[in-house]
């Protein structure tokens, strides 16, 4: 028992947990709803930019991008490229106006833009759908990591992670969540920086490893003992460095590019972060900071995927690393590469980083969904807005417990699902629902309540159908990520219904003045 507690991976994980508890304790007092839901709008660009990075760079990114590059080669790197686009578009079209708008939740935007309870309700449904689809793979990843490194059962992993989240978000609110997310981001980035430094120090330069990989063709020695078919793993370097490994056609590639690049604009937990800045100027700088972090992060992830592949092909790694790379799946590439490059301590830091990624992303989803339940549903529909600040905070905390249970059940249901499939679903739904609503709602006065609701419902239904029931569609409409079809449908639904309806809010000019005025810029 004592020996296992002294293992580097255990020490690093305990330090991470201790830090989370300490930050949560320091930030436990949320006197007002503003404190609880938007951190009192007190976070500067550095902290908030780090927190946005922490929110965006989930476990699927921390472990998944390098894993996809390791497995798919160039197509894996293309995945990272698509993820890197979204934050920039969000910074250009949405970040500043959204902060000037203020409020607490994503649904507030629609409710206020159209003075509409129906629009709020539709937005709540979409927030919960996107957050659920996004939370499920994070929980799946958390349970898998706990199982791989600490030998726990899948069910224990789900329950443990949800319990940590209930404590972490329920007590700390947005203040604790933001500070924890910022810290957790730097743990992950620190792990990647050390891995990159170790790789370069070891002579694994980018162009050299790509050359070695592309020239490799044949079986990888020493892998048969770990393979299920007892044969050495075959590898073709030319195919790995080329395209078409994952997306077999040009249009599949274009569809993914549209879905992933525009999906970020519609992710509720990312949108919510811009409410926590003190001003629109700080919101834009936060976005810039997050983009800088994400760009460096994706660059490192792709490089480390290639480093992992190079180590694997050389056959020079320790038996345990080779075994993990053969049988552990994509999620094992970053930990195994860390172990090969820096031994047990670097592996420990990467494991702590993986937990940090999961906690960071899940906490953002919990806060966004908690706002939808407590602020949008309970305070608005049940209490008819006749509710004190303290009661709002309590409702927020109760909703975190409810969400913990719901997400836990969801996590248990997706045990055999594909993480990538669920994440793609969340991005596609976001790109086809909130992205058209926010872009058109901020920039087009002609958008009507009916147009917005139609856009949300049609976007949600079409995107879910095209993912879950793609086999019922003609072959040319079967996309892995159907952004090419669903995003234009989302935009067109809003546009056409608004054009037919023609009834815009009488005070839409006041709204536009509010979200585009310059008065709060220099604050």
């Amino acid at each position, binding site marked *: 028992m004592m020996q296992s507690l002294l293992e580097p991976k255990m020490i690093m994980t305990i330090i991470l947990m201790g830090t989370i508890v300490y930050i949560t304790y320091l930030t436990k007092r949320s006197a007002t709803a503003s404190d609880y839901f938007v951190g009192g709008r007190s976070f500067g660009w550095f902290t908030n930019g780090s927190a946005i990075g922490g929110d965006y760079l989930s476990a699927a990114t921390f472990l998944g991008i390098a894993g996809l590059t390791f497995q798919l080669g*160039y197509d894996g*790197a*293309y995945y*990272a*490229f698509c993820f890197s*686009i979204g934050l*920039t578009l969000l*910074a*250009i*079209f949405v970040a*500043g106006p959204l902060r000037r708008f*203020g*409020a607490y939740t994503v649904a*507030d935007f629609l409710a206020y833009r159209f003075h509409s*309870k129906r629009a709020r309700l539709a937005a709540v449904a979409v927030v919960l759908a996107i957050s659920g689809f996004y939370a499920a793979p994070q929980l799946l990843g958390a349970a898998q990591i706990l199982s791989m490194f600490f030998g726990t059962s899948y069910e224990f992993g789900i329950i443990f992670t949800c319990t940590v989240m209930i404590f972490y978000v329920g007590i700390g609110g947005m203040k604790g969540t933001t500070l924890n997310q910022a810290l957790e981001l730097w743990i992950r980035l620190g792990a990647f920086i050390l891995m990159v430094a170790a790789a370069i120090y070891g002579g694994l330069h*980018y*162009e*050299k490893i*790509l050359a*070695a990989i592309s*020239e490799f063709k044949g079986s990888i020695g020493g892998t048969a003992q770990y393979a299920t078919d007892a044969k050495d793993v075959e590898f073709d370097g030319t195919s790995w460095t080329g*395209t078409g490994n994952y997306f077999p056609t*040009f249009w599949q*590639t*274009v569809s993914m*590019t549209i879905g992933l690049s525009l999906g970020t604009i519609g992710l509720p937990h990312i949108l919510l972060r811009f409410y926590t800045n003190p001003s629109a*100027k700080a919101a*834009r700088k936060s976005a*810039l900071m997050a*983009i800088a972090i994400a760009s460096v992060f*994706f*660059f490192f992830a*792709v490089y480390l995927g290639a480093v992992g592949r190079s180590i694997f092909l050389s056959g020079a790694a320790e038996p345990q690393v080779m075994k993990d790379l053969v049988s552990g799946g994509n999620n094992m590439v970053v930990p195994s590469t860390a172990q090969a490059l820096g031994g047990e301590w670097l592996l420990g830091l990467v494991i702590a980083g993986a937990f940090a990624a999961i906690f960071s992303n899940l906490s953002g989803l919990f806060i966004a969904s908690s706002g939808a339940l407590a602020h949008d549903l309970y*305070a*608005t529909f049940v*209490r008819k*807005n*006749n*509710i*004190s*600040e303290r009661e709002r905070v309590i409702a927020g905390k109760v909703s975190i417990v409810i969400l913990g249970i719901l997400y836990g059940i969801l996590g248990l249901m997706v045990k055999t699902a594909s993480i990538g499939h669920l994440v793609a679903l969340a991005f596609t739904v976001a790109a086809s629902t909130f992205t058209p609503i926010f872009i058109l709602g901020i*920039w087009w006065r*002609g958008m009507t*309540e009916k147009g917005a609701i139609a856009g949300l419902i049609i976007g949600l239904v079409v995107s879910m159908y095209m993912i879950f029931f793609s086999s019922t569609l003609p072959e040319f409409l079967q996309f892995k990520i159907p952004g090419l079809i669903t995003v234009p449908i989302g935009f067109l639904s809003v546009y056409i219904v608004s054009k037919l309806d*023609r*009834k*815009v*809010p*009488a*005070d*839409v*000019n*006041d709204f*536009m*003045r*509010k979200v585009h*005025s*310059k*008065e709060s810029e*220099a604050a």
Partner: protein
Amino acid sequence: MESGIIEKNIFKELVQKGGKHMANEYSEYDYVAAGTIDVSELPPLDTETEKIMKDEFSTGFKLSLFYYAFIFAIPILNWFAPDFMFSRMWGGMTYAWFSTGIIAMAMAFIIAYVHTALYEKRIQKYQNNSSPLDKSEGRNIG
């Protein structure tokens, strides 16, 4: 609960006074019966807000257009000029890998940086030419 009732009463009073509500923090005035009008009867925006929106959108649109031209150039070249894109630049680094794994990451930041720099320049210009319309007269939610 008490503060909620007080806020609601204040809100009702403000609505009765003319529908303008100024507050420092969010409160429950989402459902003002502002009514709707036909889009053809919508009065034009004030010139300043219109200019801000136009400048902002124009800059963002141009940058996005440039960015998406770069973004889509990569798959187009990959699929229709693979001999060039998958030929080596140096070592094993191909044009495709270099543009996707390195340049694209830098591009995401460069576009956002240029947008922020242009925005700050515009704000500086607006502040130097401040007008009586500096203060938003519309809805304010803190």
